[in-house]
């Protein structure tokens, strides 16, 4: 198997985490109706709750420098069990990609392209992602810095523009709702946007920096992303107030309220374009990670030949994954948090614990030192 050459800079890595989180800010339609006007608080709680798990990711990475998730599974669980767990991860990555594709199709179909069927929107999009993925990780993540800066500027501009519709008293009855709602939406937030950072375990060996210092780039990227999401949700609540529960896409509704000088009023095309660009970044990163996982699972030389057929699978998978939009919402709210919780948090934690039980990091360290000595 090809050893991964360190192809992306740490700055790119940090900002791709932020861009990844920022692009899932549209998913507020999942947890907003549940936690109503306290959604912004829920995002903060969730980012604190899943800190230990992120710490587990970093420890896993430090324990196995230069190895991605699939290789770690092989090393920790042995060949057969490792293969099975890696296969589960692969299915998880593919499902994530097709879920996000379906979200994109839904968003574009509802916001700017009413009558175009979903197949067309999704197929054209996946072709573009396939082209980007076939060129490698450096191209996929190169514009992460630009996208983050652009989206933060636009976020500040929209907050300024809609400030005349904002009423700060919308936040007020803080945490007056039953704890069950708060727990449920915290679970949703900590699995859908934040838990998906498990995919970064796959691309960590490709960052050209000593693994010890990677944590210094992983966490700030995460905090910046979490902060941006909180800002977005807070802006939606400030404007929509308690009507946030009835809107299918709250953050898109607020963007329709943006108006400058009473002339440029219907600006949601620009914001739709920005959200599509962010979606592009997220989906091509997910697609790249699933291709990488597939090529390591089947021990192939390169993943490039596999791109087109797996793109076809992802498209059809995203079309048949749910019978209807309502089913998508219902599953997303009720059962998905538990399922994803297992994939994103328990499995990596399990691998870490078993690794320490089998004292693998020490073996890894002295293997590394032997290599250094012999080189």
């Amino acid at each position: 198997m090809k050893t991964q050459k360190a192809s992306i800079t740490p700055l790119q890595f940090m900002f791709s985490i932020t861009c990844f989180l920022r692009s899932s800010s549209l998913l507020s339609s999942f947890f907003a109706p549940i936690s109503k006007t306290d959604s912004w608080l829920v995002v903060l709680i969730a980012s604190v709750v899943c800190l230990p798990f992120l710490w587990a990711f970093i420890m896993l990475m430090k324990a196995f420098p230069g190895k991605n998730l699939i290789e770690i599974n092989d090393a920790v669980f042995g060949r057969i069990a490792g293969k099975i767990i890696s296969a589960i991860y692969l299915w998880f990555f593919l499902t994530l990609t097709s879920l996000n594709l379906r979200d994109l199709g839904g968003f574009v179909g509802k916001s700017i392209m009413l009558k175009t069927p979903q197949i067309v929107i999704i197929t054209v999009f996946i072709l573009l992602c396939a082209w980007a993925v076939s060129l490698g990780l450096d191209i996929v993540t190169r514009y992460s810095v630009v996208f983050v800066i652009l989206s933060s500027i636009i976020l500040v501009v929209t907050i300024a523009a809609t400030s005349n519709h904002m009423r700060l008293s919308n936040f007020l009855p803080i945490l007056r709702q039953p704890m069950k709602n708060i727990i449920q939406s915290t679970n949703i937030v900590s699995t859908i946007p934040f838990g998906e950072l498990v995919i970064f375990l796959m691309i960590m060996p490709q960052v050209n920096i000593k693994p010890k210092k990677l944590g210094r780039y992983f966490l700030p990227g995460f905090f910046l992303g979490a902060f941006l999401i909180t800002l977005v949700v807070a802006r939606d609540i400030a404007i929509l107030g308690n009507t946030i529960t009835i809107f299918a896409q709250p953050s898109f509704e607020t963007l329709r309220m943006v108006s400058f000088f009473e002339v440029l009023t219907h600006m949601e095309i620009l914001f739709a374009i920005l959200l599509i660009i962010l979606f592009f970044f997220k989906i091509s990163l997910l697609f790249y990670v699933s291709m990488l996982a597939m090529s390591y699972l089947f021990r192939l030389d390169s993943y490039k030949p596999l791109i087109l057929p797996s793109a076809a699978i992802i498209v059809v998978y995203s079309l048949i994954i749910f019978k209807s939009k309502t089913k998508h919402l219902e599953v997303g709210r009720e059962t998905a948090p538990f399922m994803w919780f297992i994939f994103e948090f328990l499995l990596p934690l399990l691998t870490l614990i078993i690794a320490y039980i089998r004292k693998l990091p020490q073996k890894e360290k002295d293997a590394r030192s032997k290599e250094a000595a012999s080189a």
Partner: protein
Amino acid sequence: MKLSRLLLCIIIIMVFLCTGCYDIRELESIAIVTGIAVDSTQHPNMIKFSVQIAKAEAIAGKGGGEKGGGSGQNSPVMMMDATAYDLEDALHSLRHDNSRELFLHHNQVVIFGKALAKQGIGSYLDALLRGHESRLEVPFVVADGDAKEILETELELEKISAVGIQRMIRHKAEISKLFGTNMLLFAAKMMENTASSVAPIIKVMDEEKTKRLSLTGLAVFKDDKMVGELNEPQSRGFAWLMGKIKASTITIDTKKGKAELEIISSSSKIKPNFNDGQKLDIKAEIEGFFDITELRGYENIEMEELLDLLVRMTKQEIQKLIMSCFKTCQNLNTDIFSFGEYIRRHHPNQWEKLRPRWDDIFPAINLSLEIDVTIEDTGKISLPPNLKGEKA
């Protein structure tokens, strides 16, 4: 390698070709809707949905040939209406006898007839909020009488009357933000559990030959039914109580002379005290800042004395305005001041106790006012010029 690269390009182009243009809508194939009016008809649950469509060439004037004006065929707008059970059917039936597709994105105003408002407009609002093409910040007005007639009246200043109405509402809202409401605010108010909101009323004033539109007073809604009306002074009182009045003036009429004070800004703080749940009384601290814009009469009076007199009289005037508005709302049992919402937000635990009996607590609220008036500035001259000058 060359062959496959060529093939790739052909395929990509082909894929794009077969995507085809599903969403294409040439500019000539759309009818731009600028105003919507919904009226009730004699038949109990049928509505008359009329739409104002802008005719492009007439407005652009095709080289400034004949100016808009005139109600003949070259008037810049065209009315179309349809009667149906609800909004969606109406929209579809409008499509049958219309060469172009209705384009609701640029709709400027939604007008509901008074009769329909009385029956309840919840379902029509829902259709408007759910539709993709309707905007949330579109202003929403109640017509005093027939909504279609409002849309038909020509405004000299504006070619398209709907745009004119929207500008009138925005101009009125400058006096106080409460006077203009849009879809979102109305929906938000309806979702509050002590739901009652307010919408401006528009009237057709027909002088001798021309018809004129004017925005007077506010319609009071309970849930989604219009239950009452506030005339101009009462709506001013409402704005005073909420501390959201900015621009308009107060006239003071005393024995010594008349005075016009312009309001610079106002604010109000509400202090409910619950005396454990039985009876709720609310103390409102209201603060007003004024400029003197006009003084008539007031011979031989000292400046301080004049100012004290004006302050005292303004306090009475504001007190009168607020009380009249509060009384009408209390007997309509509509909490347009959103006291309930305020208590829910700021004092959640008391709110648990009050909520079930809110309908009988609200009429029994006694409102105590504490008004503090400061006169900022007397304009360019201090005392009225009609002083004879014998005062040294």
